[in-house]
């Protein structure tokens, strides 16, 4: 046989093999598709394993000193609080305190504890509550919860008249009242008092701690931690909570949190049925990918509502930053920031950054926070002409041949914008802002930085402007004083002021103090509406769009209570149920 027919034969043979391989793969695919169908017959309310993802692994099991997401998620599974804010209804509901009474001045709360035991069988008593406050307020313990359990910068005073009664005294009037205890993660005195006495509380319950030492008051106990891979939680047989029918919760036997650092891989695992739910919201660009599975009934795409922590853009408003910089004469003026707000087409912004899954906003409180949102704050409609007029009022005009404005001294209207490298919505937002400001003659130099470097520059005031995010853990603005008060560590445009740098910041401080001290809901709302108005007039931070939030969950998971706050689903893990597990292909869990 000469070379030409042999080559032809080889090509034909390869083609035949490829065709057979494709046919075989297709048939396997059909079987796999059939295999991943959800079986609805075996519906149960008790038992089953739920697998969820976790984007990073815990650095510590000690919730009192660690606030990273994995530790917070663990805390929701393993801990109970005296009272809790229902993340769905935003109402306060009893926890380990089965009832309470308030004094006439609302400064003293007397709580009656329910009978409960830690997972190791030790009774839970008021001594645990008192010990928890001691630990949190002990400076040597370095608890990150200390700040959120203070009123007017003062700690609460806690006493225990008997084993089932706790009296909590507030140093001043406090609007959120007993809801402040939603932050209180209870510590087992019998396990941790020695560490507190020895000054090693912050180091206890590290990730090397044996799971059997981590006693729980929550619905689950940690059964196993496989570093870098997963956390396995099992039902706490001593959990105190029952459902309406008297069935002891939780319904699930086990929750597995698989560590999946990559968001794309996390999505693929959900699609393959190897995890039941995502731990974070679905990215806008992934919604279309999940739709077919939703249509096939394999997946639920839950709309959680409008996000409550929108990204924000802000200038450095520390006067000393601009003392020797001529640009300070217009950057520090609110008209400049108002011009920027007018120059941005928020609808187009929502379409570009969030692919349409977003709503325009004009302040930090979004429609997702139904209780505190004010629809009447000043709005800056999209108007290039209005923006240009405001800039002209500041003396900014095009004085040379290029496309940018200059002030009277010839300084170009240009600033640097820092943002968080790797965060796609922030990077896109910064680009959209740069392009939107071009038509009004303002030049923006976008620089994406790694998160640690960005925060460090923000804290030192070494920046001109930043596009970033700010997360709150509560709906009630009184629980986020760091953001609103001029002295706060989260007052990111001018952090930790000794006295308010501007008159409007002083007004906000005064109103926030009044609002925090008031116990009348209507009065609190009225005061906070004023705060929002002042904020929107002065725009220390500019908000453009709040994303609509979606989360992907397997169809076999039910009895969910979705919340806009994180963890969106596992905050109520004790009532989640699963149907019998899907029969996946060989790659099943």
């Amino acid at each position, binding site marked *: 046989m000469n070379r030409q027919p042999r080559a032809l034969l080889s090509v034909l043979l390869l083609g035949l093999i490829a065709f057979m391989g494709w046919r075989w793969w297709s048939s396997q695919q059909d079987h796999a598709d059939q295999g991943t169908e959800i079986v609805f017959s075996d519906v149960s309310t008790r038992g089953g394993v739920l697998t969820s993802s976790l984007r990073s692994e815990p650095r510590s099991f000690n919730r009192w000193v660690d606030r990273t997401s994995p530790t917070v998620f663990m805390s929701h599974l393993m801990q109970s609080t005296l009272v809790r804010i229902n993340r769905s209804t935003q109402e306060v509901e009893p926890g380990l305190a089965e009832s309470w009474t308030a004094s006439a001045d609302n400064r003293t709360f007397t709580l009656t504890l329910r009978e409960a035991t830690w997972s190791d069988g030790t009774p839970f008593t008021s001594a645990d509550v008192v010990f928890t406050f001691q630990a949190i307020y002990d400076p040597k313990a370095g608890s990150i919860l200390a700040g959120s359990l203070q009123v007017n910068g003062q700690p609460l005073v806690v006493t225990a008249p008997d084993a089932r009664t706790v009296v909590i005294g507030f140093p001043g009037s406090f609007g959120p009242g007993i809801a402040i205890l939603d932050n209180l993660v209870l510590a087992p005195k019998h396990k941790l008092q020695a560490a507190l006495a020895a000054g090693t509380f912050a180091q206890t319950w590290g990730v090397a701690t044996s799971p059997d030492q981590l006693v729980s008051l929550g619905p689950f106990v940690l059964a196993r931690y496989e570093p870098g891979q997963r956390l396995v939680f099992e039902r706490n047989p001593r959990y105190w909570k029952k459902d309406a029918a008297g069935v002891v919760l939780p319904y699930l036997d086990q929750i597995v949190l698989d560590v999946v650092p990559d968001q794309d891989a996390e999505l693929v695992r959900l699609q393959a049925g190897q995890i039941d739910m995502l731990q974070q919201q679905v990215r806008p660009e992934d919604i279309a990918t999940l739709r077919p599975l939703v249509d096939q009934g394999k997946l639920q795409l839950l709309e959680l509502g409008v996000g409550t922590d929108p990204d924000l853009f802000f200038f450095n408003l520390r006067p000393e930053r601009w003392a020797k910089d001529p640009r300070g004469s217009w950057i520090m003026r609110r008209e400049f920031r108002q011009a920027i707000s007018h120059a941005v087409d928020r609808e187009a912004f929502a379409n570009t950054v969030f692919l349409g899954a977003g709503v325009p906003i004009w302040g930090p409180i979004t429609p997702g926070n139904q209780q505190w949102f004010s629809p009447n704050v000043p709005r800056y409609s999209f108007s290039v002409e209005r923006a240009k007029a405001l800039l002209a009022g500041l003396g900014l005009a095009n004085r040379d041949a290029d496309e940018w404005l200059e002030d009277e001294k010839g300084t170009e209207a240009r600033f640097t914008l820092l943002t968080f490298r790797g965060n796609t919505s922030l990077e896109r937002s910064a680009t959209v802002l740069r392009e939107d400001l071009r038509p009004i003659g303002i030049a923006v130099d976008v620089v994406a930085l790694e998160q640690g470097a960005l925060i460090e520059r923000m*804290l030192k005031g070494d920046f001109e402007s930043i596009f970033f995010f700010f997360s709150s853990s509560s709906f009630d603005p009184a629980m986020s004083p760091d953001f609103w008060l001029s002295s706060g560590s989260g007052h990111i445009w001018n952090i930790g002021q000794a006295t308010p740098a501007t008159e409007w910041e002083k007004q906000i401080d005064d109103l926030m103090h009044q609002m925090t001290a008031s116990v009348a809901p209507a009065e609190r709302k009225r005061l906070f509406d004023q705060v929002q108005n002042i904020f929107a007039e002065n725009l220390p931070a500019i908000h453009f769009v709040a994303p609509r939030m979606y989360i992907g969950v397997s169809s076999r998971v039910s009895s969910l209570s979705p919340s806009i706050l994180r963890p969106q689903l596992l905050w109520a893990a004790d009532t989640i149920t699963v149907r019998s597990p899907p029969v996946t292909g060989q790659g099943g869990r």
Partner: protein
Amino acid sequence: MGRYLLRRLGFALLLVLVVSSASLLLTRLAPGDVTTEQALVLDPEARARLRAELGLDRPLAVQYLTWLGGVARLDFGRSLLYSRPVSTLVGERALNTAVLAGVALLLATVIGLPLGAYSGSQSRGLGRAVVRVCSVIALSVPPLIGSLALVFLAARTGWLPVGGMTSASGMDQAWPQWLADLARHLPVPALALALPLAATLERLQSEAMVKAVHEPFVAASRARGLGPIQAVIRHAWPVSLRSVLGLYGVMIGALFSGSFVVEVVTSWPGLGRLMYDALKARDLYLVAGCAASGAFFLAAATLLTDVLLAFADPRVRSEEAQ
């Protein structure tokens, strides 16, 4: 030979020291530290107290010399992030990475060298062209895309687990079942790492083989009556291995220190992911420990390949002897 080994060992120690010191110093000099993430919820006094507790308020020179003193006693310090000894953390993860790297290297060798020898010994033909095209594709696909494609394939077909090192039930199983479970989790990350390496080996082996088959001693062996395949296997291939084996040291070092993309995508709990997390959080002792580990493996692998090279190529042995 003894002096040569001692010299190489000294070089390896120096490499480990320089790499880990540079990592520690650069991490320390970069903006932010391990307390930065908490800075927005801690008041400045609390943050300063935390920095003091972690020893981050000390001058750079004091911090470095204290760490160096520890390293002299083989104590790489405690991770600021996990409050655990760095050596323990690195040891756990290095073992996981070693498993993955070992399998990936084996796969790359098994795939790359024979294909390279084949394509290098053929002057033309369909088989050679197919091998070259596949190699170019495998070389040009970035590890992120390659691993995502494999993860997607595994998810779509259901043939293999999508990620992780073992199943959730893996720890409760007996050894044989645990090993079988591990074996089912290995192909996706191992192939993601192995395919570009196999392509590199194939290309290198092919080029080396082209040169080797034209060496006079190969022609002489043919003249002595050896068949073409035997001449290639017995004479051309061992000589061509010289340039290929030299690459192994670098490949092993890269597998231990540069596989974090694959480890992140496939959720493999290895050293690369640990170092990435440490870098993000500015855990300087853990960064230094991970870097030291990577440098150690690079130096050890280079040494090992030099020894192997000496066995593979008689000319190297004679050079050493001289």
